[in-house]
């Protein structure tokens, strides 16, 4: 009889074993092009053929065809597969990229979104023939309202930033319906960069309110900025330092007192799921990043989903159409009476919405609360492990993320936040967010999420602590084990060459 000696489990989220066959430069898809090569062709179609000139009026025809790449299916698949092997991803290992909530998405959600009954339905299908889809969207909206403490919801915005703009347009419509033309939106100095960008896009002026020594909105400074010209305030709670805005009730009261509205940036909603709700804090408008809080693929430019939920007084301004349930239990599309109009085609990125809904159903209310509890516990545990190694400018109980700093390490041995991030890649983890929020010098913004095991968290902490003991200068050489080493970000930004032929021309000159 043999016995197995119990040992600690290996960390599942450390990716140092990721295989690579070589470090050669991977050509762009255009460099594989060979004239006349095709990925797919119909052997026979039986259909008549037309030329472009027969189908398109001459005025709309290009004089020359577009220079598309011509590659075989075999080469295309090999190229894309090699590229995927060069990527770090949530599926590969831990991804503590602060503010981005890079949590693992269960494969169950992929499965739900690929059901033919969902994926094969055209969005123009009459409502009577797509009752299942309408019920799904209505139920998702209902769940999101319950999670946020709001009254009604639009699922159209295709991303968080689109949700922000939608929220600001709702604010404008609300004030204008009351005959008011307000011009200013207040934003904390720790805010996400999308907030002031959305404010500008929405035609408002940004007024910045500073953070106090606790890292929270300075209430007195906020009061000094409030007047009848303020349309509203945009807040993340917890904020980008991972701290809960304890004075939120007083903030809400002060903003409402001057007739302003409160906008909740849902970027950090993962931290409070099932524990507290923006609606209960006094917010009027909420956007949710379904990819952060629930389960939609991250990055790559979409398709994403950034639904916006509002309190009762704003419900009739929502973009339409929205799914509505009739008294007989059937569903129909309805456009709110004072709708600001569409913010996206059809009903948003519907399969991303289906994916998020499957996540909500699979977790249930109690499971969603455990998501938040796990996220907060993991982030606090990691902060405690790093105390004494990294500076912790706001060393108090945090929510789902925290901000450390290399100010002392930089002064003592020239180690910058960027170097720590690059060294962490060599240790098999994605880097944290660096140099954000802007109010912290040499910031490392770390969000481990609820999906990493204690073993992975321990390995991540060990790696960060080991890096802090590096010989001076070692960080500047990293990363040395990745397919691409340290890139010249400054040159890439100064000399913007967005296409492969522009790069070739630049290199030749």
């Amino acid at each position, binding site marked *: 009889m043999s016995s197995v000696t119990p040992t600690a489990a290996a960390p599942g989220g450390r990716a140092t074993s990721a295989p690579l066959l070589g470090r050669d430069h991977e050509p762009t898809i255009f460099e594989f092009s060979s004239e006349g090569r095709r990925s797919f062709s119909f052997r026979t179609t039986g259909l008549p053929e037309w030329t472009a000139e027969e189908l398109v009026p001459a005025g709309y025809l290009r004089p020359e065809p577009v220079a598309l790449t011509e590659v075989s299916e075999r080469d295309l698949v090999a190229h894309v597969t090699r590229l995927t092997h060069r990527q770090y991803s949530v599926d590969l290992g831990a991804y503590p990229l602060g503010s981005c909530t890079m949590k693992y998405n269960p494969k169950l959600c992929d499965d739900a979104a690929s059901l033919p009954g969902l994926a094969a339905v055209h969005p123009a299908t009459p409502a009577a023939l797509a009752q299942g889809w309408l019920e799904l969207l209505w139920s998702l909206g209902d769940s999101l309202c319950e999670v946020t403490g709001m009254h009604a919801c639009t699922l159209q915005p295709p991303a968080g930033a689109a949700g922000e703009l939608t929220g600001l347009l709702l604010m404008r419509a609300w004030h204008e319906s009351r005959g008011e033309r307000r011009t200013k939106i207040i934003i904390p100095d720790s805010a996400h960069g999308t907030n002031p960008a959305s404010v500008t896009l929405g035609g408002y002026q940004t007024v910045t309110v500073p953070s106090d020594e606790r890292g929270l909105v300075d209430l007195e400074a906020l009061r000094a900025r409030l007047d009848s010209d303020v349309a509203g305030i945009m807040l993340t709670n917890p904020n980008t330092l991972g701290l809960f805005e304890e004075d939120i009730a007083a903030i809400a009261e002060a903003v409402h007192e001057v007739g302003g509205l409160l906008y909740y940036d849902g970027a950090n909603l993962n931290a409070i799921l099932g524990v507290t709700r923006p609606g209960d804090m006094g917010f009027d408008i909420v956007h949710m990043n379904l990819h952060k809080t629930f389960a939609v693929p991250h990055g790559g430019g979409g398709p994403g989903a950034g639904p916006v939920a509002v309190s009762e007084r704003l419900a009739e301004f929502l973009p339409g159409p929205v799914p509505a349930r009739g008294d007989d239990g059937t569903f129909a599309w309805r456009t709110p009476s004072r709708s600001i109009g569409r913010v996206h085609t059809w009903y948003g990125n519907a399969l991303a919405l289906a994916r998020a809904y499957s996540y909500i159903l699979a977790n249930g209310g109690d499971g969603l609360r455990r998501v938040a509890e796990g996220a907060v516990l993991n982030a606090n545990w990691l902060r405690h492990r790093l105390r004494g190694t990294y500076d912790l400018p706001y060393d108090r109980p945090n929510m789902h993320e925290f901000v450390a700093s290399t100010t002392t390490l930089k002064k003592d041995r020239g180690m910058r936040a960027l170097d720590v991030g690059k060294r962490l890649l060599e240790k098999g983890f994605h880097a944290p967010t*660096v*140099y954000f929020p802007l109010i912290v010098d040499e910031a490392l913004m770390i969000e481990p999420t609820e999906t990493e095991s204690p073993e992975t968290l321990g390995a991540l902490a060990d790696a960060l602590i080991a890096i802090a003991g590096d010989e001076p200068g070692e960080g500047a050489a990293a990363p040395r084990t990745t397919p691409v080493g340290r890139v010249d*970000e*400054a040159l890439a*930004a*100064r000399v913007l060459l967005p296409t492969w032929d522009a790069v070739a021309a630049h290199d030749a000159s």
Partner: protein
Amino acid sequence: MNVPDDLNYTSDHEWARSEEGGGLRVGITDYAQDALGDIVFVQLPEPGAKVSAGDSFAEVESTKSVSDIFAPVSGTVTEINQDLTDAPQRLNEDPYGEGWLCVIVPDTDGAEPELLDADGYRKLIES
């Protein structure tokens, strides 16, 4: 950190040099360029633009962040450093020379600007 004795400074890390003809040449300090890191883009006002002391009138983008630049005085922009469009790195390489941002002619009726001297600015960045 290089803090030339013959310049005036703001607490927001801009410098100002009095020119013949009454204009003020304005830029960001060595401390500011070091803190910002590699600068990749500079947005300047149009010549002729009116600026107000303490208000943002330009933007500097580095690989880390985008920062507002605040006017040290109220006045009119008479000249801008066009070279920065193609060579924003001048701000890193030579913040007090080729990396200047613009020339502002102060309003004659404006209040005397409250600027720091070199010693005052050194104390500020060392604190």
